[in-house]
């Protein structure tokens, strides 16, 4: 069997760890609370005075989720797992040991990225489906509003958002191999992702309240195209960096 496949299978073993399941459960519950449970009370209150605004909120809430959360969720889960898969592997010297095996450096990066994709993407997909599913099931009952989700919102949540996130995450994985201090990169990435996720969510909520008419269509095909264009640019950058990925450069920064 190809050594890359062996490494890929070994990395999938992270799914057996309680920490993986605990992080997934915690973040999934957080998403359901913010995007399914919390809006019910808010929309109910607003619906008493202004049914039109309540209608608008019910439409825009899934869009808000799709615009930022799958991307955020993907990156945050990836970063939690990649601390062991990329950073600790490098700082503890196991990466150096792997480089003494028949594995090539690029194969190690590919195997690790694919393993994390297999662990993270289905989870993001599951959370998105749960959020949309619960919204479509609970909201009509609780709020008496029609719930419908557009194709563009759905494609953003389950496909384009995660694709962009995967580009970013793969780039971070590659940089973790290349930079001298992978721990610092890991910590900065984690805190930036955390802050952008929460801050972005807060900013979108604030915008939604202040300029609701302009934000009635948070997600449109041009927005999707921008996401796709950024993802494409990231992959071009990754390919360029991969050409420069050199064992000598990676190993010289190891302790």
């Amino acid at each position, binding site marked *: *069997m190809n*050594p890359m496949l062996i490494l890929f299978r070994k990395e999938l073993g992270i799914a057996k760890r309680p920490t993986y399941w605990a992080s997934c459960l915690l973040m999934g519950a957080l998403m359901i609370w913010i995007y399914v449970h919390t809006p019910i009370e808010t929309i109910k209150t607003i619906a008493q005075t202004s049914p039109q605004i309540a209608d608008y909120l019910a439409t825009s809430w899934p869009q808000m989720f799709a615009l930022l959360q799958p991307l955020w969720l993907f990156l945050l889960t990836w970063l939690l797992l990649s601390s062991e898969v990329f950073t600790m592997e490098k700082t503890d*010297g196991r990466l150096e040991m792997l480089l003494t095996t*028949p594995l090539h*450096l690029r194969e190690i990066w590919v195997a690790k990225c694919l393993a994390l994709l297999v662990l993270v993407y289905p989870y993001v997909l599951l959370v998105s489906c749960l959020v949309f599913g619960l919204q479509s099931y609970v909201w009509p009952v609780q709020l008496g509003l029609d719930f419908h989700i557009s194709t563009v919102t759905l494609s953003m949540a389950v496909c384009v958002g995660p694709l962009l996130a995967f580009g970013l995450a793969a780039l971070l994985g590659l940089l973790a191999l290349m930079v001298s201090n992978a721990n610092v990169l890991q910590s900065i990435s984690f805190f930036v992702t955390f802050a952008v996720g929460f801050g972005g969510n807060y900013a979108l909520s604030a915008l939604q309240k202040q300029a609701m008419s302009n934000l009635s269509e948070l997600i449109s095909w041009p927005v999707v195209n921008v996401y796709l264009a950024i993802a494409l640019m990231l992959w071009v950058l990754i390919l360029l960096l991969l050409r420069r990925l050199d*064992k000598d450069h990676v*190993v*010289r920064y190891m302790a």
Partner: protein
Amino acid sequence: MGNPKQPVVIFSNVFKSFGTVQALRGISFELLPGEAFAILGHNGAGKITSIRLILGLLKPDSGAVRLFGHDPYPEDELNRKRRQHIGVVQEEDRLYLQMSSEENLLFWLALYGVQKQQRKERAFSALSWVGLEKRGQGKVGTYSKGMRRRLAIARALVLEPQVLILDEPTVGLDPEARVEVRELLERLIHREGLTLLMTSHDLDEVEKLCKRLIVIDHGQMSLAGTLSELRAGQQPELSIKLVREGEGIIHESLFQELTALPFVTRLELNGNMLTVMLNKGEEEFISQVVARLAGAGVGIAEVELYQRSLEEIYLQATANHKGNSD
């Protein structure tokens, strides 16, 4: 693999620098099949860089590194296959702590493309070699440092390599574990005929295990050769214990006569102990010194030719080298 008489490793005038730091400056040596060879030097001398160059993890700035006659750096199919013949044990064990020792070995064997039906058998046999067969299912995270080191050696041995490269194999181990690992290595060298390259700060261990060595100091080679060659390169020191002590035991004229001998470089009398330093390689004149003393009526209780330990040779070499560089 290759010609059995061809050197396994050739280092030829190798230079390697990291930014402004020159890690290796013109290092040359050869590792022959079946020999136990040591690279010595203080921390940061360039030992790990040398090992990384041999393993093809780093590329030399100039000079040539050859492993089994080929450049180990390129990531090609030839080198991919060649890596199966090298077992590596690093200073830190670099094991997967969440996995059992058996899983660690099975993973390693799978990476090297060993057939599934053979993996279990080879893993068990390697664990038996290092005395861990009864703890095969235990998580490595629960192992003591000595057990981890033995497992790291098992991981290197499980590949049935021709060359074993060890970086500080006994560092950080308690004396008991140190002896265990040393005995294991002795078995490997003497019974299995493995080619061994090791770095170590434990010079006693090197003296027991290795026949040939080099000393690297600040990236430069300050000493090279077999242990007997290195000892032969030292000035022979003769310790003569006299029967009596006190002033006048050796007459001034005899003292001067002995000092004037062409093969004697230094003469010292402390109590009843007479130390005679001879020129390099002139041990055969020991009998002449003893005969002259006896002829002058000096009672001799004991004569001993002092053999310098590797530690003394090493310290002298690094001190000389430091003096030269300064």
